[in-house]
């Protein structure tokens, strides 16, 4: 199939879904067997309502539906009125996601490398890691909120908690599977133990770390939203909880769409970086 055909299909499907979403429920009274209850705008809102809600939540239009002027300061007034408007919420969630991702991947990599290269450490710590990894991360979220408060710290810790194990296991596996001949070659070329670690074990393990970065960034976002659900003053997760409390489906949907866009952008950036760093590998085609 040509790229154009594929694109046309994709646009057609997206439009089809949007049409059903927007007008589908109006058929409910006449054809109740065809239209599920779930299409009720009370639950899932409608594309037009979501768009309107987006313009409000982002301070682009005022209550009467008139576009806010940048020049006369109406936009900034609107921004100042709510401390968790769409922009602030997105920024906070994004910031905490990146922080959790950075802390989680770094610590996961160091732990994985240390244990992967030391049979003694592995033997000692294995039961602890298995036990810790078996705890559903969600179960710990309330404790983390209690311990770290409603601010950013608790969100970063929840994100760290979901990311660190993922990266740890990948790195551990990678550190175990370093090619012995590569190590021998380095040693015979005059490398000291430290040089072998730096020039063979770390770069070879990095390949495994990179492979876990794309899921890691998605996991970090999940961790942050989870933390915001349990207890937060700001952030997109907080927006969803507030909209739910007010019974505003459109408000929740706006937040969900923003999360989707943020997720896609983050994953794309990470994949780009990953492909660049792994450019020495034979190309693997067709990854999603």
């Amino acid at each position, binding site marked *: 199939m040509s790229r154009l055909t594929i694109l046309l299909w994709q646009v057609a499907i997206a439009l089809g879904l949007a049409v059903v979403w927007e007008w589908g429920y109006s058929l409910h009274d006449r054809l109740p067997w065809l239209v599920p209850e779930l299409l009720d705008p009370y639950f899932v809102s409608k594309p037009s309502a979501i768009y309107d809600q987006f313009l409000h939540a982002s301070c682009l239009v005022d209550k009467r539906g008139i576009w806010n002027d940048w020049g006369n300061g109406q936009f900034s007034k609107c921004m100042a009125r709510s401390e968790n408007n769409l922009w602030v919420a997105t920024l906070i969630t994004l910031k905490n996601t990146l922080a959790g991702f950075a802390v989680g991947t770094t610590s996961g990599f160091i732990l994985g490398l240390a244990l992967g290269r030391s049979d003694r450490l592995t033997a000692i710590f294995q039961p602890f890691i298995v036990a810790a990894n078996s705890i559903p991360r969600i179960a710990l979220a309330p404790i983390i909120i209690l311990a770290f408060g409603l601010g950013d710290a608790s969100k970063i810790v929840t994100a760290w908690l979901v990311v660190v194990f993922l990266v740890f296991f990948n790195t551990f596996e990678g550190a175990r599977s370093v090619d012995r001949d590569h190590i*021998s*070659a380095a040693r*015979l*070329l*005059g490398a*000291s133990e430290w*040089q072998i670690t730096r020039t063979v074990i770390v770069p070879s393990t990095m390949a495994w770390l990179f492979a876990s970065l794309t899921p890691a960034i998605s996991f970090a976002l999940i961790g942050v939203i989870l933390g915001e659900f349990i207890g937060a003053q700001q952030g997109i997760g907080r927006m969803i909880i507030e909209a739910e409390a007010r019974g505003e489906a459109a408000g929740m949907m706006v937040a969900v769409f923003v999360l989707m866009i943020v997720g896609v952008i983050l994953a794309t950036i990470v994949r780009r970086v990953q492909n660049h760093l792994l450019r*020495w590998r034979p190309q693997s085609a067709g990854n999603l």
Partner: protein
Amino acid sequence: MTIRIETRDLGKTFVVDGRAMRAVDGVSLAIREGEFVALLGPSGCGKSTILNMIATLLPNSSGDILIDGQPIDRRRPSRNVGYVFQRDTLFPWRTVQANIGYALELAGVAAGERRERTQTALAQAGLQGFGHYYPTSLSGGMRQRAALMRTLIVQPQILLMDEPFGALDTHTKLEMHRVLLNIWEREKQTVLFVTHDLGEALTLSDRIILLSARPGRIKEEFTVDFPRPRDAVTLRETPAYAALFSRIWHSLGEEFVKGAQP
């Protein structure tokens, strides 16, 4: 002449599934300065094991190994000894030139000098213009040439080579022989070259040590006195080559048969 590599009554026993298996037995050999010696034998005769013990990659079970008259230290391999693997062991995350310059980097050679010496090595191996490539995008022959240069760049006086061209096709192999002979004519390293390919051994070496089937013992030695510099292709057309080939081939053939028996 000075003896650079020496083994005395060298032996190796592997334990496989709880049973001891003698792989190498009573091997005593001495290789003189600047000599090119081929260690020839059927597969599984322990020739790579002997080489790997000399290279400190494997501990020996019995006997002694001396490099320049000194017993080898497994924790600190001698900087005078270079090793070329059977498998391609280039670091895939480094470009070809970063691979070749690796040992210089370890030794703390300044970037400018490193670049210069790497460029010279690239040219010697016929890899000009491929310095920025990653190993995965090169052919097997090019990769093995790069691997050879990675070892040679620090100018080791002793070279241990473990069937380095074993995985290459005939044409590429001859090309590699030419590259290696060129370098060796100039630098005259002391070489111990493991192979199961008699033609290769005759093309390259001054002396062939023939090993028996397992357990590996020295069966016979042959002096290869073809004039140098040699041409890898035309050498094979000479009557002297054919005569020596059939003499060794007969002896080697007996070991192939023994090695194939269960």
